[in-house]
């Protein structure tokens, strides 16, 4: 935390304005600019979050607070059910995030080459990102439809399958959710990595070439280290977004069948809105937030160590 009392970054003009404004007013002025945003955050995040934390220690329903119960809600989460919710969320993150990063890195490296129609291809990459998240779930519901869907149609025509598979059956649904998540995350990561690739100084490659480096060595020892800050930032964002993912899965599977795709946000939704148990739902959300804070903290520690 910074303890800074000087208000102006640049003292120019201070003398002139100082004659009119008192010092304390000038010290307050940054807060005037930040006030509307701060108010909005307090209204929609800070207050509801404190409520959620309070509910997590309470018996509460959608109608509101009933009574304080101490840690009962948290203790009540020590069940295999919540364990598997966290495990499913973990699997989603552990499979999807590396999947997104590797796929996007390959895509970005390809699109960074001298291609015909490069502009068009790059423009098309972002299409999945422009679709509202819940409609991604709707489109995938059609794409993976057991009888009509193109996914089955394609696999059958390529003779990779002899009979159509039910992508949304209890045994396959999680895999389908993973594929959808990777698909949706890839455009963002590709565009971010592509931006980083374009800013790698060309001289580095020339120097590496003079030293006799081949394409693979250039990739491993020049490209990847140069874009590492972006790669890790994208990774962190993808981890965060995947932990709190909701719309897409809600629209594709609703967490089913038999809860096999019931990841954190879906489980919270079900507890709060279907079981009317706001206390337990809030405790789940608090645990999710704590996990993400730890992940983010670890990331910034690592980043700082890398930077120094």
């Amino acid at each position, binding site marked *: 935390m910074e303890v800074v009392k000087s208000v102006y970054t640049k003292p120019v003009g201070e003398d002139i304005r100082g004659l009119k404004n008192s010092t304390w007013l000038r010290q307050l002025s940054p807060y005037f600019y930040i006030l509307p945003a701060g108010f909005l*955050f307090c209204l*929609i995040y800070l207050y509801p979050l404190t409520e959620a934390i309070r509910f997590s220690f309470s018996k509460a329903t959608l109608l509101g607070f009933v009574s304080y119960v101490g840690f009962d809600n948290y203790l009540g989460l020590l069940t295999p059910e919540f364990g598997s919710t966290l495990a499913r969320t973990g699997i989603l993150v552990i499979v999807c995030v590396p999947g997104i990063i590797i796929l996007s890195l390959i895509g970005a490296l390809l699109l960074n080459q001298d291609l015909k129609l490069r502009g068009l291809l790059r423009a098309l990459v972002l*299409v999945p990102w422009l679709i509202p*998240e819940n409609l991604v779930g709707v489109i995938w519901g059609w794409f993976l439809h057991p009888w009509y869907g193109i996914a089955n149609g394609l696999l059958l*025509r390529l003779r990779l399958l002899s009979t159509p598979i039910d992508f949304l059956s209890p045994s396959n649904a999680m895999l389908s959710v993973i594929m959808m998540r990777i698909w949706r995350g890839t455009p963002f990561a590709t565009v971010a990595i592509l931006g980083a690739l374009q800013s790698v100084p060309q001289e580095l490659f020339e120097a590496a070439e003079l030293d006799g480096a081949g394409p693979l060595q250039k990739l491993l020892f020049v490209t990847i280290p140069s874009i590492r800050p972006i790669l890790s930032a994208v990774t962190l964002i993808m981890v965060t977004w995947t932990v709190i993912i909701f719309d897409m899965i809600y629209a594709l599977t609703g967490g089913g069948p038999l809860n096999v795709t019931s990841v954190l946000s879906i489980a919270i939704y079900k507890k709060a809105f279907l079981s009317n148990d706001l206390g337990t739902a809030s405790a789940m959300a608090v645990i999710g*937030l704590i996990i993400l804070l730890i992940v983010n903290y670890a990331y910034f520690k690592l980043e700082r160590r890398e930077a120094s």
Partner: protein
Amino acid sequence: MKTRVGRILIHIGAIAFVIYLLLPVYSAVIAALTPESKLGAQLMIPVYFHWKNFVDMWKVIPLGRQLTNSFIYSIGVSCIILAVATPAAYALSRFKFSGRQVFLFGVMVTQMIPLIILLVPVFVMAAKLNAINTYAAVFVTAAATGLPFPILLLKGYFDTISSSLDEAAMVDGCTRLQAIIRILLPLAVPGLVSAFMTTFILGWAQFIIPLILITDTSKMPVTVGIYRLLGETTIQWNLVMAATLLSVVPPMLVYLVAQRRVAAGLVMGAIKE
């Protein structure tokens, strides 16, 4: 990779990558052009060109009403975000003040909270204010959730504009506000445009917030409207896909108009700091 074969392989790879990203959308296009009775054929290319789907879909859901609503939500959310994010970004770019780091940390934490759990207290609050089923409730809630990225995006943009410009204006007798309005904002128009476009796309994508705060069907956005079609006993996938495709046209158009800006805005707001 300067050989001919290498170049061809790179082209194949790049095209395959783009096809992968378009395939599910392409499958939606096929469905939207196929009569319902022929959906079972699992077509790979559209052969029927049954444009009537795009006529019939208006009868299944009040699509016109819902698209208008989505448009209202998008514009409202974007306007609030710009009005609030611009001064905040200005403060973060031009001032050092105690609490700055706390603010930035808070902005980051907002991204880590499952939105769904916040919506219960927000719902209770909105109910007390008699704001359930009002556009304003969705504007405010969605604007708050979409605020962090535009703030960081605009802060980054303001940082690239030398502060000596607005300070010179202040030396010449402008007040700080005048310096912002007359000097800084005109220079920041490209940044403001990209912030507006990205927030428009975000506003268009709103789903759980209106799902919970809006029960009046006449105020539902198209995202919720299409989702509700899936709850019916028989899903007419050809019509659902036609409606879905139509409803992604506005964000696509915004993207087409200012492709580079949107791409930079979407990504950079998220990655800076």
